[in-house]
């Protein structure tokens, strides 16, 4: 038995070393940037990082302000682009970022992105508040249904996401979730690859899924109204434009209208798919189409 266990251990060990070397060489999984929390309680990425998207398809970079994508040459005539993983956009090369595409359409303006996966609507406004110091001309906040839902602790409680607590009427800042474990997982590339590939097979995921069924937006309208009311009273300035992703629930549009918060809704109904086959995020094409609609809106808005 001793010999058997030693042989098994040795086999696994050698296997893990070979797999780790192969995972790093072929980049089986995308490099994941490390996060940090700044003094304003905003989760950002550790500045000046770079890494590869899986299979080395392209390189991503985090700029020295801690946001993914390139920074503008100048902060004059600045438009900030705030959002979640759609805007963070690690899955596409830099040339497909909203800021780059918008700049192409509107060369007189400078665009700067401030995005991170998991940003809720309320956190986007917190980021907006921080970026106010740059005196932007416009602040674009890209949002979808889930960003509204994840903004309210009483609807979708999440400890790692900044949320609005309806009971205390205060912001509860998101905490970094298991940072130590994540550091190990992201650096042990093969284990991360296994995790990404097979975690959905684990039975407990089904249990989690069944517990987190989404509630009906209609039932929670009063809660959403409280959220929008809070945003309206604490953040909204004339330069904020919310860019709602396609198919956003009309209830949210109505609430924004009610509070006279400016918004536009992206439309992909008469177009081919904006998303990857295997992922809901936008492809380069999707980003390009979105940027065209946003720039059209901005042009009209400027007039």
């Amino acid at each position, binding site marked *: 038995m001793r*010999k058997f266990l030693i042989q098994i251990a040795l*086999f696994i060990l050698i*296997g893990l070393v070979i797999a780790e070397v192969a995972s790093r060489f072929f980049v089986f999984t995308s490099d994941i940037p490390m996060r940090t929390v700044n003094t304003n309680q905003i989760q950002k990425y550790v500045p000046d990082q770079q890494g590869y998207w899986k299979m080395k398809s392209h390189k991503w970079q985090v700029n020295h302000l801690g946001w993914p994508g390139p920074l503008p040459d100048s902060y004059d005539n600045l438009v900030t682009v705030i959002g979640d993983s759609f805007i963070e956009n690690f899955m596409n090369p830099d040339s497909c970022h909203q800021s780059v595409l918008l700049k192409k359409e509107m060369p007189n303006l400078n665009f700067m992105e401030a995005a991170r996966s998991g940003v809720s609507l309320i956190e986007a406004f917190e980021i907006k508040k921080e970026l106010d110091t740059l005196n932007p001309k416009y602040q674009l906040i890209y949002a979808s249904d889930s960003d509204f839902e994840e903004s309210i602790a009483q609807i979708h409680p999440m400890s790692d996401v900044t949320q609005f607590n309806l009971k205390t009427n205060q912001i509860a800042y998101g905490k970094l979730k298991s940072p130590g474990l994540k550091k190990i997982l992201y650096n042990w590339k093969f284990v991360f690859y296994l995790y990404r*590939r*097979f975690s959905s097979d*684990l039975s407990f995921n089904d249990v989690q899924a069944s517990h987190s069924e989404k509630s009906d937006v209609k039932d929670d309208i009063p809660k959403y109204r409280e959220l929008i009311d809070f945003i309206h009273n604490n953040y909204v300035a004339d330069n904020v434009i919310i860019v709602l992703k396609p198919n956003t629930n009309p209830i949210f549009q109505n609430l924004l209208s009610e509070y006279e918060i400016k918004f536009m809704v992206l439309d992909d109904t008469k177009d081919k798919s904006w998303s990857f086959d295997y992922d809901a995020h936008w492809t380069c094409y999707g980003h390009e189409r979105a940027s065209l609609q946003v720039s059209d809106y901005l042009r009209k808005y400027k007039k």
Partner: protein
Amino acid sequence: MLFNSIDFAIFLPIVFVLYWFLTNRNLKLQNLLIVIASYIFYGWWDWRFLSLIVFSTIVDFTIGNLLKNEVRVNFRKIYLWISIIVNLGFLGFFKYYNFFIDSFTEVFSFFGGEISVNSLNIILPVGISFYTFQTLSYTIDVYRKQLEPTKDIIAFSAFVSFFPQLVAGPIERATNLLPQFYKRRTFDYNLAIDGLRQILWGLFKKVVIADNCAEYANQIFNNSNDFSGSTLFIGALCFTFQIYGDFSGYSDIAIGTSRLFGFNLKQNFAFPYFSRDIAEFWRRWHISLSTWFRDYLYIPLGGSRGSLLKKIRNIFIIFIVSGFWHGANWTFIVWGFLNALYFLPLMLMNKNRVNTNLVAESRIFASFREIGQMTITFLLTVLAWVFFRAKDVSHAFSYLDGMFSSSLFHVPEVFDSNVFFLVLGFMVVEWFGRSNKYAIESIFKVPKIGRWAFYFLLIALMFIYTGKEQEFIYFQF
């Protein structure tokens, strides 16, 4: 619990450690652990159906002991029939009730009658066909006085529910497996290593060969009207390799897992696609089922003795029943019938036991004659698998009609060179390993570095070519 699941990858080492480190000094405790582990393994799918296994176990254990003390022939027959009725009754209800109701209704309406009998929404308990046959073999062997009935209910429960082969075989005979539960098992390094190797090969067959072929077989069979004859032929080929990789892979994992626990199960597949005639194919495909039917149905019916008519009758009965065992659908019956038709000329010409040795024995390559024989047998098998895979008999005929059309020689719409080379490489390994119990059994002769490199290659291929996870086909039987 599927063998190719994370659940099983966690379950197996836990049971292994408990088995060899906690219960190894007490045979009863070790057997009890196997029973508990087997029930967890089965209950993972649906714990409610555990009651069927437990009931079957109690019935056959009791009848076995009643048979031991009973000398009166009539009473012995009654006991035997109780076991047969209980076991086949469960099987008949869960597996065939709806089939008989639907067929009866159709026949009635065919003759102009009108009858309304509701079919039931019945879930087929996983593996019921396998453990039913296993327990039946015990009672029949005890009845025939070929086996001493056991007084050890735990050992018997372990025999009935032994988790490696519970849900998809091999169907073990009590004469082979049950005595292994009476003896103290000591850890055997070579047996365990061999077991792991066979598990690895079985997983490769399932995850790489079967699941990748399944994607194309499903796509082509589910949309057969949209494809040319050549593509339909590829679909049939894909299913041919899918079912082999799937089922023989399962058997390899089952046998390998048993070896880890010190048990020896019988070989279930012996490279059937290298058979030179259909009789040889049936000696090499699902051996545990073929021999079960041979010993408990074919021979009692008279086998190959008696008049010509009786011989022919027996051949058709055994093949059709074998087909029907696979599922409650006319497709399986036609599949069995077709195989009987293939087999019949060999039997009539008394050539059904010509090819009993290994093809190209002690040679690397087969002769042209052997290649021709293997090709014909293989193609006949491919044709029969169309019935096995089709959703109903008319679908099978329309599939074959499409396949044997002028478009058979068109460029196929669906062809994946990766899958082609995987299957080709797999068959080459199988060919060179055909004298073993499983293809890579004799790799232990290769120096360790080469051996391990090959294992790592198989594992890497499993990661790279993991197809969309498919349930083992034979779970439904």
